[in-house]
């Protein structure tokens, strides 16, 4: 049997490798406008003339001597596995900074193709690139593309196919030469780039270019952030997604139309245990199906849409820059802003993206903060919607949460040995997000959400049912009563905390139901929302924490999270009984 031929897509971060991967393969990799989107290898199939090859999309790497974890992934891969073909993607405008890697790749001896992507942006900047000359200078195939628009993709496929099938002796012998160091490589890169680039036209100054400076301004930037949070997060996700949309789907559709139907269908069921499993308060229909489909799904969908817009526009690196100083007091730096913000989407994915951070100290602090107090999209949406009618409660909740995160980060910075590395980051241009890309990404994430949520919702309902039937649930609830009482919370919240252990959003959904029944006072609402926000990360996230940080640090994180959550609940309750804030 012939060994399957593998094509590797490599290049600097944010040059469009994943866009190209999505276009030439049958798989999907997430595309966003910031460096470090891809942190692990994605694999897909590339078909050419009835032949099938494997394509791998890799995390962006600046050079073949890596320094962050995700870069290591790519470099190790290139060194270990024999690649049939390496496709290096570069950005047209910044060709001079990217050819240094090309020289390094040539030295490895793999067959190489150079893709000069984002030709559309180069043209807008008034640049003309002579790719023929570049091809002659390097003596490897060069293809120009504007991948986001699909331009040049067919040509690229053809060249890849041709190179894969070329006999060794027919291949061009690349003009490989050895350099004494990075500096020399960069000089040569610059020289070649100069020879093939010319700028006969003046650059267009676009609206995005002007807006870019506004978002990075030390003062206006913060104002802009406020607008984004207010309209995007609060108005769109909180009020529209978690409010209007959930009211309609859960209230009007699920509870008024779907549930009565299910109940009628279930009238024939005589087995009491089955009836329990399906129809009890925590049964499949009232809990698992309803929470995941009618309550959480609409919120997650609206959140992912808003979030994709942030990612694809290129706003996140600008935010990283604005918040660098603040993050340094937590032992982190601006580079941690992106993983922590990703945590608002899903903690599990965010924990994985802490790989883009340089030191293990930073990674630990970031993972701890993610596990502790960064609410995930569904939870955040629900809490925003629960507290939407009470601006003061919302303010107390938000303020306490930020204060606790800051305090924990500050302590970590003081206690843990080590230092925070300096902040450096490329700031990509602001780009107008493509609608199809936006929808594709949102769809991919929803699919992923469903895949994670479905088995879990079955499991949770079954566990609650077993717990209920065997009496274990009652005992656990009894155990939870004293800490709840200490926080001034009613016993009805006990099962909600248990749910919260399985998934953060189920806990929030349970709270949402209690609030609808009018069971909680203002201070209780704040304390409960806060404790649930801080409470355990969901199972999936915890597994990822152990995977990335190891069992010892994982356990440490778990214990400190539980103590902080209940401790904070207790404190806030005390404060609220003394100060008449609500």
């Amino acid at each position, binding site marked *: 049997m012939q060994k399957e031929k593998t094509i590797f897509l490599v290049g600097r971060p944010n040059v469009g490798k994943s866009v190209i991967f999505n276009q030439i393969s049958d798989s999907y990799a997430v595309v966003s406008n910031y460096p470090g989107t891809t942190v692990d290898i994605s694999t897909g199939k590339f078909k050419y003339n009835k032949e099938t090859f494997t394509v791998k999309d890799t995390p962006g790497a600046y050079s073949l001597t890596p320094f962050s974890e995700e870069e290591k992934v790519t470099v190790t891969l290139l060194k270990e596995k024999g690649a049939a073909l390496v496709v290096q993607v570069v950005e047209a*405008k*910044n060709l001079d900074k990217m050819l240094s890697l090309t020289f390094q790749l040539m030295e490895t001896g793999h067959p190489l193709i150079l893709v000069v992507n984002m030709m559309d942006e180069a043209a807008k900047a008034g640049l003309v690139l002579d790719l023929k000359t570049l091809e002659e200078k390097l003596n490897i195939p060069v293809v120009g593309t504007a991948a986001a628009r699909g331009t040049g993709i067919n040509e690229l496929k053809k060249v890849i196919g041709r190179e894969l099938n070329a006999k060794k002796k027919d291949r061009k012998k690349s003009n490989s030469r050895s350099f004494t160091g990075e500096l020399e490589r960069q000089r040569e890169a610059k020289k070649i780039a100069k020879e093939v680039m010319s700028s006969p036209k003046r650059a267009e100054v676009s609206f995005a270019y002007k807006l870019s400076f506004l978002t990075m301004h030390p003062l206006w930037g913060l104002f802009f952030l406020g607008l984004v949070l207010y309209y995007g997060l609060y108005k769109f996700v909180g009020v529209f997604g978690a409010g209007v949309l959930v009211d309609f789907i859960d209230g009007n559709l699920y509870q008024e139309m779907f549930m009565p139907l299910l109940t009628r269908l279930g009238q024939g069921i005589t087995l009491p245990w089955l009836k329990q499993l399906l129809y009890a308060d925590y049964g499949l229909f009232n809990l698992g199906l309803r929470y995941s489909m009618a309550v959480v799904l609409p919120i997650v969908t609206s959140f992912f849409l808003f979030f994709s817009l942030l990612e694809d526009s290129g706003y996140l690196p600008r935010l990283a820059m604005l918040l660098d100083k603040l993050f340094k007091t937590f032992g982190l730096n601006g580079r941690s802003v992106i993983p922590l913000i990703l945590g608002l989407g899903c903690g599990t994915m965010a924990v994985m993206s802490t790989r883009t951070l340089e030191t293990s100290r930073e990674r630990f602090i970031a993972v701890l903060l993610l596990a502790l107090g960064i609410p995930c999209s569904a939870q955040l949406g629900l809490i925003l919607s629960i507290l939407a009618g009470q601006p003061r409660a919302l303010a107390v909740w938000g303020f306490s949460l930020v204060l606790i995160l800051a305090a924990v980060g500050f302590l970590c910075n003081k206690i843990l040995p080590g230092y925070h590395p300096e902040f450096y980051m490329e700031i990509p241009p602001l780009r107008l997000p493509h609608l199809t890309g936006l929808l594709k990404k949102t769809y991919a994430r929803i699919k992923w959400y469903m895949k994670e949520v479905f088995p879990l919702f079955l499991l949770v309902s079954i566990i609650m049912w077993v717990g209920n039937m065997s009496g274990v649930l009652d005992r656990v609830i009894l155990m939870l009563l004293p800490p709840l009482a200490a926080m001034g919370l009613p016993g009805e919240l006990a099962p909600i905390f248990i749910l919260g252990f399985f998934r953060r959003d189920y806990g929030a959904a349970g709270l949402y139901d209690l609030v609808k029944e009018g069971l909680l006072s203002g201070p209780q609402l704040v304390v409960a929302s806060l404790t649930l926000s801080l409470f355990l990360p969901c199972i999936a996230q915890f597994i990822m924490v152990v995977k990335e940080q190891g069992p010892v640090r994982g356990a440490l994180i778990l214990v400190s999270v539980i103590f902080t959550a209940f401790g904070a609940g207790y404190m806030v309750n005390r404060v609220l009984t003394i100060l008449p804030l609500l």
Partner: protein
Amino acid sequence: MRKIKTAVPLTDLKKGSTGTVKEINAGWDRKRKLFTLGIFPGEQVTLVQKNPVLLLKLGYSFVAVDHSLGKTIKVIEI
């Protein structure tokens, strides 16, 4: 007679001015970070913004570095 300008830390430049990188006064680790961003001797950088971090324009790309990293970059103003 032409005045010979001395190299100053990048952080000393005024907002909006351009300089040529003379040298980078730092260990290999930091140097490499700056190299990967395209900052190395001979390169021209424009200081676009000074706060909250330094924002530099290099050719067609923008790069942000914090002050402590920026201090290690010695430039000659042009």
